[in-house]
């Protein structure tokens, strides 16, 4: 019987013939924590009283969730991270480097076939580049830093095949939201997804990352894809490390198999307050919006900014609406500057933020007011997520957010096709 991608990666990193259901201790290729989780990881690490990290060169800390710091107490936690990184020789990505997940990709800390943990639930994003990457908490991160390894239950795998040519104006985010709506918020709990099919092959890497990013919103442990020429092209020039991509065997065993035909898919939107509360944008068209957010680890990459700029170019955000744009990383920011996208956003009336998580995490840079509707490219619309439990968050693609901010109400982006 053949093996899945998860079984192969966890097997090679644990020196076992790992099978779904087994519990293994596996060696980690890289680990990451951000400013919401690293301070607690540092406290746990110190409680373990173990001395130096096993592999300091495999650890990165990122200041992205509250960057720049909005509060004195947060500044003290950031200072703790800088001091810990300095003491142990760890890489520190400070304010302005961007969202941890994009930084991990830009710097090629994660490569195909690797095993990576991150103290952030959206670590599953790197599944799109064929890494077994999964979110953990702070204390697991601390144990990983100290010993270089962590225990894993080898997950069962759900195979998802997406086929058909995406209609004009419909994007990877719409596929991801459709999947969350169908599979539901816990439909893949404890499982790995293996996502493939001709639609996925046709997507650019940025779009694939968007889909893997939402794997955890279905409860999944990982959102894996196979590597192809586009994947390898991304890593060219970014790393000299050797790596080997991993494909599933033809006779691998799957817990469940699902197939989607997206040739007739419409733009999708998740309504408050659950990510799986998904419908076609048309069903809620006309709902007024007060704030838009384009960015985050879901949709802050260059292709996302290009698609939003194509809608916003030569147009203005409606009076009474604030549109916040936050590129995912310094690299994305620089490319957006070179291409004139930042100028387009600024001309359109958007507020462009420093690369980072921006208002997605509810602490700064755009906390909504009572009763306000927000339309965001992020991945969570839980009540209170953006800092106000009296606000309502809708999740959609960058073009849907852009079109909605121009109109001041939820709008099908196909009305703005070039």
């Amino acid at each position, binding site marked *: 019987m053949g093996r899945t991608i998860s079984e192969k990666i966890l097997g090679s990193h644990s020196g076992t013939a790992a099978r779904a259901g087994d*519990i*293994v*201790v596996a060696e980690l290729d890289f680990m990451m924590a951000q*400013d*919401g*989780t690293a*301070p*607690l990881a540092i*406290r*746990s690490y110190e*409680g*373990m*009283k*173990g001395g130096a990290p096993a592999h300091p060169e495999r650890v990165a800390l990122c200041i992205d*969730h*509250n960057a720049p710091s909005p*509060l004195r*107490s*947060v500044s003290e*936690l950031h200072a703790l991270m800088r001091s810990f990184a300095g003491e142990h020789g760890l890489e520190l990505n400070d304010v302005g480097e961007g969202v941890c997940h994009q930084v991990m990709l830009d710097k090629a800390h994660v490569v195909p076939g690797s095993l990576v943990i991150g*103290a*952030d*639930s959206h*670590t599953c994003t790197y599944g799109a580049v064929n890494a077994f990457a999964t*979110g*953990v*908490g*702070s*204390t*697991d991160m*601390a*144990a990983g830093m*100290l*010993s270089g*390894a*962590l*225990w894993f*239950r080898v997950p069962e795998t759900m195979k998802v095949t997406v086929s058909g040519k995406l209609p004009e104006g419909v994007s990877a985010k719409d596929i991801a939201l459709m999947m969350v709506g169908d599979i539901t*918020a*816990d439909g893949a*709990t*404890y499982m790995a997804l293996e996502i493939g099919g001709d639609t996925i092959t046709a997507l650019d890497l940025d779009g694939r990352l968007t889909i893997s990013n939402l794997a*955890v919103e279905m*409860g999944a*442990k990982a959102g894996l894809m196979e590597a192809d020429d586009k994947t390898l092209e991304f890593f060219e020039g970014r790393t000299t490390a050797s790596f080997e991509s991993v494909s599933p065997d033809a006779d691998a065993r799957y817990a469940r198999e699902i197939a989607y035909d997206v040739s007739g898919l419409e733009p999708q939107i998740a309504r408050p307050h*659950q990510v799986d509360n998904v419908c076609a944008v048309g069903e809620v068209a006309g709902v007024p919006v007060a704030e838009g957010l384009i960015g985050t680890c879901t949709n802050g990459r260059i292709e996302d900014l290009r698609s939003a700029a194509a809608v916003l170019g030569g147009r203005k955000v409606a009076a009474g609406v604030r549109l916040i744009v936050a590129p995912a990383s310094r690299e994305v920011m620089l490319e957006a500057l070179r291409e004139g996208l930042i100028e387009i956003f600024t001309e359109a009336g958007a507020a462009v933020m420093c690369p980072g998580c921006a208002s997605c*995490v*509810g*602490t700064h840079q755009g*906390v909504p007011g009572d009763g306000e509707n927000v339309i965001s490219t992020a991945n*969570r619309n*839980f*009540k*209170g*997520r953006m*800092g106000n*439990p009296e606000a309502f968050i809708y999740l959609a693609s960058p073009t849907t957010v852009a079109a909605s901010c121009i109109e001041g109400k939820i709008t099908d982006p196909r009305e703005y096709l070039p």
Partner: protein
Amino acid sequence: MLLKGKAHRFGDDVNTDYIISGRHKFKTLDMDELACHVMEDLDPEFYGRCQEGDFIVAGKNFGCGSSREQAPLALKHAGVAGVLAGSFARIYFRNSINNGLPAIVCDTTEIEDGDELEIDLEAGMVRDVTKGIELASSPLPKVMLDILSEGGLVEYMSRHGSLKVS
């Protein structure tokens, strides 16, 4: 070990933002301060009502969402002795055990708010004293029982230095 306490009933899909909101958790490592805000977006009175040793009883997918370990820690510091749910999201599940807070998988359908519960972790038995019923719970993998019995992963690692599964 036999735990006794009162049930506080919640629904399905209680995410970690609801357990402890980002607007509080990013500010401090003081878990007693965070505990005052635990579950407040779902039930602002919860912290005031929760007694030392009480249980949270929820439906499916408890702890979904963010990886914040402040979620089980804030519950623990609010006096919660354990969470019973139909199922747990996996990151929360690990975090809970890593911090020595029992996470018990069982069919919670019949447990109502205010019921008196007795939980025997070793035997995997949940007793609803008010209803006079017994519910079987799913056993934890050995590695998680080992971590729980050491009091959490920090204590486990300080004693053993690395993880062992066999």
